């Protein structure tokens, strides 16, 4: 029986002029590893989960690549794809208006916002995933990011389904001002409720994770993991260097640094991630009846996105 969690939007790809398309055109058969400079056959890189076969460098993943690697094929059902950014401050800087920047980013990235949420299965186990996309304005956390994550957490709490968040982010989105900052409070409050319902939250810190995301839901999860070499911090290294005039120690703010200082539970290679998540889910399933499979009052929105980037997101204040 299809759980109510599984209903929702099937992903409708946006038309895109993303440079990633260029990577697939004939002639771009090779990718160069930024770490060891090895030339890698693109298909080999994809087959190796975008990990350099020579030096083990974990390439950054787009959100949908991550979801594809993490959940069982065909199991992912996207949620709240129709929740789209607005421009509450009518923000603009010398590079243009925020609303224009949003449209350009939407066309370029093929996404409407920086966070993708939805339901899927990991080797048959139910899970809700919330994955940020660093290619969308540095996966900065604005109103939509916070709202989609909060909705996901609330549904997880009601349905008893574990949550996995994958968190790469530059921090709060400056263009939405204090609305962005308050998403830290909003998501942490939702996580507190998830905890009251005794539903586990697994956080994968992904490269790079900074600012408001590091200082909110991502670092208080029940299990916090990171891939090798991932950079995680509150303040960015350049800011720290400028202000303290100190040379940063080798390996500063890497996953290994965080592990050494007791800030994360463990480091996992990308190839072991899915299996590890499945094992964690099994532990919680044994001690606590997660995924009770009950229907929940949430009414899914079955309307489809029209597959076209919005002209201008109309500010509609939700209260």
């Amino acid at each position: 029986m299809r759980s109510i969690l599984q209903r929702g939007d099937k992903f409708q790809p946006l038309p895109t002029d993303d440079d990633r398309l260029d990577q697939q055109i004939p002639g771009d058969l090779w990718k160069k590893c930024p770490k060891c400079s090895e030339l890698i056959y693109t298909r080999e890189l994809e087959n190796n989960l975008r990990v350099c076969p020579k030096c083990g460098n974990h390439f950054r993943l787009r959100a949908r690549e991550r979801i594809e690697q993490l959940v069982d094929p065909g199991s992912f059902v996207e949620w709240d794809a129709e929740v789209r950014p607005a421009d509450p401050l009518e923000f603009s800087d010398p590079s243009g208006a925020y609303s224009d920047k949003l449209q350009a980013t939407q066309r370029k990235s093929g996404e409407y916002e920086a966070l993708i949420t939805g339901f899927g299965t990991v080797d048959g186990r139910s899970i809700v995933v919330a994955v940020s996309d660093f290619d969308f304005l540095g996966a900065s956390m604005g109103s939509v990011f916070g709202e989609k994550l909060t909705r996901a957490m609330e549904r997880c709490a009601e349905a008893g389904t574990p949550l996995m968040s994958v968190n790469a982010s530059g921090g709060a989105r400056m263009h939405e001002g204090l609305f962005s900052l308050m998403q830290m409070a909003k998501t942490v409050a939702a996580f507190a409720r998830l905890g009251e319902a005794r539903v586990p939250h697994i956080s994968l810190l992904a490269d790079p994770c900074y600012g408001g995301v590091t200082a909110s839901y991502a670092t208080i999860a029940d299990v916090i993991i990171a891939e090798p070499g991932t950079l995680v911090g509150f303040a960015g290294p350049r800011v720290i260097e400028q202000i303290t005039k100190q040379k940063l120690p080798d390996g500063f703010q890497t996953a290994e640094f965080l592990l050494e200082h007791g800030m994360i539970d463990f480091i996992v290679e990308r190839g072991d991630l899915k299996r590890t998540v499945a094992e964690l889910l099994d532990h919680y399933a044994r001690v606590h009846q997660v995924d009770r499979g009950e229907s929940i009052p949430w009414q899914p929105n079955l309307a489809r996105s029209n597959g076209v980037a919005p002209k201008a997101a109309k500010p509609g204040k939700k209260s």
Partner: protein
Amino acid sequence: MRRALNRRSESTATLEPVESVALTPWDRVKLARHQSRPHSLDYINVLFTGFIELHGDRLFGDDPAIVGGLARFGDRTIVVIGHQKGGDTRENIRRNFGMVRPEGYRKAERLMRHAEKFGIPVVTFIDTPGAEPGIGSEERGQGTAIAESLLTMAGLKTPIVAVIIGEGGSGGALAIGMADRMLMLENAVYAVASPEACAAILWKDAGKAPQAAETMRITAEDLLSFGIVDEVIPELVPAHENTHGTISAVGDAVQRALDELMEVVDQPSGLDRLMEQRYERFRRIGVWSEALPVAAE
């Protein structure tokens, strides 16, 4: 009004109210940062009696950039916590300019739990450029410390009132500011990043901070209109020129907010209602569009 920015100390001679419309957001940033503006301990010493400062996070150290302890406010015992800047350079260096390290947030969190244990309301004063960016702070988990403080505030079963008295610097401010009531002085500012940092990133020039301050909508008036702040406490004269008047106005506003919250708490299942209201208070914040209406309400 501009000259108020340059005057350092309180002058009793001319305290003529000035039209606030004359002030730009950048003027307010400068007023909010003014060295002679009253800081947390000024409020604590005037508004409360019997303040006993409690120190340390029981883990690593005591951060002088955050002060806190038990105090008496009218007929109530409260736990008060505040960022603390210095009134002069020497003191400012000791207080790290009000930039908090992880041990400061962990001290604040400990004091909040203390308040919850004894059913004591919490009052916080917000006045910080932001959490300290530094090697040691990163090593000791600056992000985690802020996140844990937020988590504690999200579920703290006692009323919390926060007052933004000067500079509300991003996550470092929010870390002790996730309150049931958020009050803000008229010339205080509260921003997701400092105008200088925002200008450096988006304008590629930190010198464009005044423009950034304009665009970022960081004034009390803006934040009230966004429903993020509950009440703006007027400053007919900038706080550093009218210290006592400002402090007593803040005291009145805190009193009213606490009275309202205690009224909620004193009812049957009042704490549950308080928790519900706090959740909703932050739950509703955000602006977005939904391309298609949700099928069912």
